């Protein structure tokens, strides 16, 4: 446990958020690995706009309107889900108008939308782009029909290529693909093939997520980590290494634990999270970080509506100084560039940097942790002749340090928490 001077209460609360996450919970069906707050609409594409969706968008806009705004317009907006591409164009337009009126949207703002293959046509995508969507994150997960089926995805391999073609035809200027490694029955060869195909499609960003077994999901109930039919830890570690090797070889920068991007195309919205900066969150189950308070909204529609009717009050306590430090490290060390020791020194004092460095000694020797000087060159600590006080950045090595980031962070939590 470390104690900070009282004046160092909070740092994030003085900053006004310029990012907003909007949760669009609707899905055709629930994927077997997913435990997000969603509402299942069914496989059949609706002929009319569902009143369920209309009501939800109404509530969402209401929430935006009752949120206190500043003069700063938003620079990143992210429609996540769920499957936001199930959103009819007029409703998307209504949400964006509400945001524009309430907060303002900066001219160069990044406006992202998660989309699933098979849920949109050319007209729809053109419409989205027309109202401001300038970044598409396409959830393809795998290129093999048998794997898509195992995951309970509602789309096929064919749908993937159709969706990519639409994205190219409509001329989306920034798009990203999501892949999952470590799926049941997935082989290293299949993973390699998925990576090759992703590279061939040449998106601006590729996210590679190692499957997380959540207890309340179909997968979580059926499978045990590292046991058949799931690949072994050895195999998923190899898949991680393979993604790093192939994607960096193809010119992508491994900029975050699970994310690769071409230069200039890192997701600006997600970087807000990793840099531990504040953001708005709207919609059921959405998390916000405003005025130093982290808050997750009710996870069901009914409870969410009630919460808005009652004024959308956020009662969470402010993040404490210790938590702010731990969260900064936990999030910042996900980025290849790591965290600024200089900033930690200013906010928490040189002693804290010293303590962090002591905790990380074994991992430094392991080659999982790097320290950069003011010249952005790595510093070598051969003996005690070099002092941490001159160090500017702390980062995990890519990919070895990333692969063991929990081990490293748990040590920091243990010693600093």
């Amino acid at each position, binding site marked *: 446990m470390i104690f900070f001077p009282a004046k160092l209460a909070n740092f994030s609360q003085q900053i006004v958020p310029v990012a907003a*996450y909007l*949760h669009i919970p609707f899905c055709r069906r629930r994927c077997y690995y997913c435990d*997000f707050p969603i509402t299942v609409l069914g496989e059949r594409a609706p002929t009319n706009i569902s009143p369920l969706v209309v009501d939800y968008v109404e509530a969402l806009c209401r929430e935006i309107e009752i949120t206190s705004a500043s003069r700063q317009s938003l620079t990143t907006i*992210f429609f*996540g889900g769920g499957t936001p591409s199930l959103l009819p164009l007029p409703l998307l337009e209504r949400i964006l108008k509400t945001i524009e009126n309430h907060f303002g949207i900066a001219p160069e703002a990044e406006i992202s939308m998660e989309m699933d293959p098979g849920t949109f046509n050319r007209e729809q995508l053109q419409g989205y782009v027309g109202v401001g969507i300038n970044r598409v994150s396409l959830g393809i997960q795998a290129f093999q029909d048998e794997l898509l089926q195992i995951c309970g995805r509602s789309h096929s391999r064919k749908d993937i290529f159709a969706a990519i073609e639409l994205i190219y035809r409509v001329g989306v200027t920034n798009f990203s693909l999501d892949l999952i490694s470590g799926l049941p029955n997935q082989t290293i060869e299949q993973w390699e093939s998925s990576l090759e195909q992703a590279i061939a499609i040449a998106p601006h960003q590729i996210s*590679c*997520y*190692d*499957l*997380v077994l959540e207890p309340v999901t179909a997968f979580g109930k059926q499978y045990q980590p590292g046991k058949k039919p799931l690949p072994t*830890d*050895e195999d*998923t*570690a190899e898949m*991680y290494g393979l993604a790093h090797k192939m994607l960096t070889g193809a010119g992508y920068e491994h900029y975050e*634990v*699970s994310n690769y991007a071409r230069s200039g195309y890192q997701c600006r919205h997600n970087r*807000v*999270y*990793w840099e531990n900066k504040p*953001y708005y*969150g709207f919609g059921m189950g*959405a*998390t*916000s*970080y405003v005025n130093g308070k*982290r808050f*997750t909204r009710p996870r069901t529609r009914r409870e969410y509506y009630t919460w808005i009717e009652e004024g959308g009050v956020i009662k969470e306590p402010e993040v404490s100084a210790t938590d702010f430090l*731990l*969260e900064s490290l*936990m*999030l910042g060390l*996900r980025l290849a560039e790591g965290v600024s020791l200089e900033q930690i020194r200013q906010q928490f004092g040189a002693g804290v940097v010293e303590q962090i460095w002591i905790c990380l000694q074994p991992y430094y020797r*392991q080659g999982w942790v790097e320290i950069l000087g003011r010249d952005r060159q790595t510093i070598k600590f051969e003996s005690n002749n070099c002092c941490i006080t001159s160090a500017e950045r702390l980062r995990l090595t890519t990919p070895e340090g*990333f*692969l*063991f*980031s*929990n*081990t490293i*962070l*748990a*040590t920091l*939590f*243990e010693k600093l*928490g």
Partner: protein
Amino acid sequence: MTDVPVSRIRNFSIIAHIDHGKSTLADRMLQLTGTVAQRKMKEQFLDNMDLERERGITIKLQAARMNYTASDGQQYVLNLIDTPGHVDFSYEVSRSLAACEGALLVVDASQGVEAQTLANVYLALENDLEIIPVLNKIDLPGAEPERVAQEIEDVVGLDCSNIIKASAKEGIGVKEILEAIVHLIPPPQNTIDEPLRALIFDSYYDAYRGVIVYFRVMDGKVRKGDRVRLMASDKEYEIDELGVLSPHQIQVEELHAGEVGYLAAAIKTVEDARVGDTITLANNPAAEPLPGYTEAKPMVFCGLFPTDSDQYADLKDALEKLKLNDAALSYDPETSSAMGFGFRCGFLGLLHMEIVQERLEREYNLDLITTAPSVVYRVTLIDGEVVEIDNPSQLPPPQQRIKIEEPYIKVEMITPETYVGALMDLCQTRRGVFIDMKYFTQSRTSLVYELPLAEVVTDFFDQLKSRSRGYASMEYQLIGYRENDLVKLDILVNKEPVDALSTIVHRDKAYHVGRALTEKLKELIPRHQFKVPIQATIGSKVIASEHIPALRKDVLAKCYGGDISRKKKLLQKQAKGKKRMKAIGTVDVPQEAFMAVLKLEQ
């Protein structure tokens, strides 16, 4: 408190198996006699410690004085002296019984006689107590009063023709029980004129008044301000406070033969006023102390180490405080190469050990690592010297010793016939020697074995319960030491010997235990960034080995739409787990691993 003639005092205790309703019956008697007002009643008045309420067992004794006007119109004083309900505390039970003239034998009408009950009934009979059988819970649908009454006749040999049928919960039969106590239990002997002898049956430490001693006056009388001598500890004190337990303490000026009460005399630790000791007057001492005093000796030992070495001083402090209140607890500093500084602690039995550990963690907020329990071995060295070893890692090497002896116990199990085979099998695998089997009824067969204590302090009781689906009960007593071909089994984690994992086993079982232990440790020790070999050795010979494969990844792929709380919780959990691990060289070993030897599938 009115003075009461000896002829109208009745001292009794209640013998019952766990869950057979002893505490509820006591509660009802307190209510019916108006000792505790209805509104002040909380369930199970006598079980004072949280731990006792949670587990439904009695650890510390209590006593209660009740005034009762019987059907003959006379007012009587009834003293209930509670007994602890576990085999670890059988000595305390014997002293409580020695303070009584009678006992209620309470048996659940739907269950029957259990081993522990039987052991205590025999103890009561040895003390010449009048025993009143009571069938409890007769209101339950499953009650079989005739069958169980017959069983008590067959098993215990008591006349049950007038057995009282009661339901403490419903208040049925409680009045009859009180009448039976008055009419069947003899009054104490009137020895008021003899020199004072009072039997201590319990004591506890109070931070303000010093040790509070619970006693029964056997002969003579005692007054507030008297200078008393404790005959076994040979210490003298002046009584500051004298009183009765009603069940709250009420001060009185004088207590005489037959009465039960408490005293406070600025006694600094319960060790100076041990259970079984005799109180007499300093200026007019009795010639002989009361019979039956023995110093309760620890039978089971284990190492207690703080997970965080900074807590060593806190642990020492906490043990000192517990010791004030627990004469049977022993502790000595221990240094382990694997665990650092801690204490070797001695306990009466496994439950006692668990209770102490739990109190240390709960009441003193300590994070502890406990090593597997060990018994006391008697080792004869080549020079003829005999040493007692309570820590396997201290066992002298083979070339220095002539023989090793280990403590044996006689275990009596009572079980439904169906499980006899399973229990015999259990005893065989634990090196048991069959002594006797008695068939009472279909649901009650008594099985007697002699077993090495070391085989019982592991998971014997759990196994007994699981192999009999919870139906069997057991009781044991120490019967002496026997020589056996014993060896020390050492464990190496990542090539480093871990003294805290050493164990003494019979040579014939060493290979099996070594295999099982290495396999279990492989399960319990988390993966590290390198391959961790685990070996079991006897001397320098490796008899079993396993390895934990290297950790290949430990990363969480995603933060969910800015919801960082899950990842944070996960890291906090991981950090907490790490805090509770002990670093053996570069390997983090979790707490459970040190108890692994208890959890081997036999």
